[in-house]
């Protein structure tokens, strides 16, 4: 009897562990990913009775690894897409399916109130993306729903935050196929238009595109009001000064969490970078001013004494 009870308890624990593992690993989308998680997919062609191997439309490719770590990993594909996608070949009409937008799930939900999705939507509607695309521009153009992960809120290293953020921009602005979804033009050469930046690559690696190309909004962790290129920050001192705008944007989250008392202006930056003009050591500043002042006073006294004694000779 005791043996049976022990076995039942073990079975119960095991099932709890399995359920927990499934919840943390995300939904099982293996059926869809058999094709959409591959660059090439294979299927049995009933007409020819052969196995066909075809290249997957790159726009329909899903990075299954990214998907498993994304914020939407708990969803099954058919939670957002039509149930009819379970049939292969997919019906041609399915491409006309209307996709969910962020606000369909996140709008007005208290669970996500701290993200301020309503504020994000308002800022986005002010952005050049929205205004210049006849409303065809949507959240998914930048935020890959199948692989989106939080960076700043997860306290990832700033370099990683910057890389993830800038990849969103370059996925279109450095990719003529995706850019072509909205424009007949080729994307401009980002390296050429930013050639004026000293240490351009350093800027690209350490600062997000949106740090210069958006209007900072105190109510949003990440500003979504992308400005026309003419209005982008171009004055170095906007960042390279004690009142660096980066403290209101890239480093705002960290700055709020840790008001540093290390003696450095904008000390929060020092954890992961150094911005000349924005990082100054208050103690060293004071010491250097005092030393310089003492030197000048000393030399002035010496000069006056020299003059007095030379006249008295």
């Amino acid at each position, binding site marked *: 009897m005791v043996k049976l009870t022990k076995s039942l308890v073990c079975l119960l624990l095991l099932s709890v562990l399995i359920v927990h593992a499934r919840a943390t690993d995300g939904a099982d989308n293996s059926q869809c990913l058999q094709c959409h998680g591959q660059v090439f997919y294979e299927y049995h062609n009933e007409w020819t009775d052969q196995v066909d191997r075809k290249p997957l439309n790159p726009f329909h490719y899903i990075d299954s690894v990214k998907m498993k770590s994304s914020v939407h990993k708990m969803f099954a594909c058919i939670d957002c897409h039509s149930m009819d996608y379970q049939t292969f070949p997919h019906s041609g009409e399915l491409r006309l399916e209307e996709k969910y937008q962020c606000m369909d799930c996140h709008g007005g939900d208290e669970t996500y109130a701290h993200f301020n999705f309503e504020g994000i939507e308002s800022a986005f509607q002010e952005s050049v993306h929205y205004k210049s695309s006849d409303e065809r521009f949507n959240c998914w153009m930048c935020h890959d729903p199948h692989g989106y992960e939080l960076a700043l809120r997860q306290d990832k290293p700033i370099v990683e935050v910057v890389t993830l953020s800038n990849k969103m921009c370059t996925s279109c602005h450095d990719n003529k196929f995706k850019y072509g979804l909205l424009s007949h033009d080729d994307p401009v050469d980002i390296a050429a238009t930013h050639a004026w930046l000293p240490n351009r690559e350093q800027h690209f690696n350490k600062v997000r595109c949106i740090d210069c190309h958006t209007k900072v909004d105190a109510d949003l962790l990440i500003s979504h009001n992308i400005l026309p290129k003419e209005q982008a920050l171009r004055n*170095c001192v*906007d960042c390279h*000064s004690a009142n660096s705008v980066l403290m209101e944007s890239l480093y705002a989250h960290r700055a709020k969490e840790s008001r540093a008392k290390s003696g450095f202006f904008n000390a929060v930056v020092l954890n992961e970078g150094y911005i*000349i*003009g924005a*990082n100054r050591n208050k103690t060293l500043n004071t010491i250097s001013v005092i030393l*310089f002042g003492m*030197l000048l006073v000393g*030399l002035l006294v010496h000069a006056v004494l020299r003059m007095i*004694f030379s006249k008295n000779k």
Partner: protein
Amino acid sequence: MSDKMYLYPLWVRIWHGFNALFFLVLLISGISMQYADLKYSFLPFDWAVLSHNISGVGITLAYLFFLVGFVLSDNKRHYKIEVKGLCGRLIRQMQYYLFGIFKGEGSPFPVTAESKFNPLQQTTYVAVLFVLYPMLILTGFPLMFPEIIIDNFFGIGGTLLTALLHSAVGFLSSLFLVIHIYFATIGSTPTSNFKSIINGYHERH
């Protein structure tokens, strides 16, 4: 009545001229960047960066030119510090600057063709040229190419450490500049040493 002694050969004067020019640009642009402000910057930030980079390369080339001249000419004899009795000589020179100069006493180490620097000058110039300058150059070039700086040095940001060292040594160099210019006024006349570094002739009383 003063007589003249040829002390500063042409190559030294050329080096000194370029060095002074680049040094001043580096100092002004460096302070301008370090204390950049939306309202009160000395120079526009991009000008400051560009001029600092150009002058940094310029002063390094000038320094290499000086080192070549130093090795090839007999000018190096002026920089050979006699360690024995150095403290006593330094104290004598300081006593002269602090007291003797006001009493009209003569310099304890007058300028000669064999020894154009007094012990205090000699020690300072050696420290500046062979300690501060290499440190400025060795920290300055990585800041020009920050991608080569390691991200983390025992828990401290590599760029922060390099920048702190560069600005601290730059500050010490600026102190040297002020002292150097002031002490240059202590000659047979307040302007005679400035003329000397242009025409090469030192004026003696």
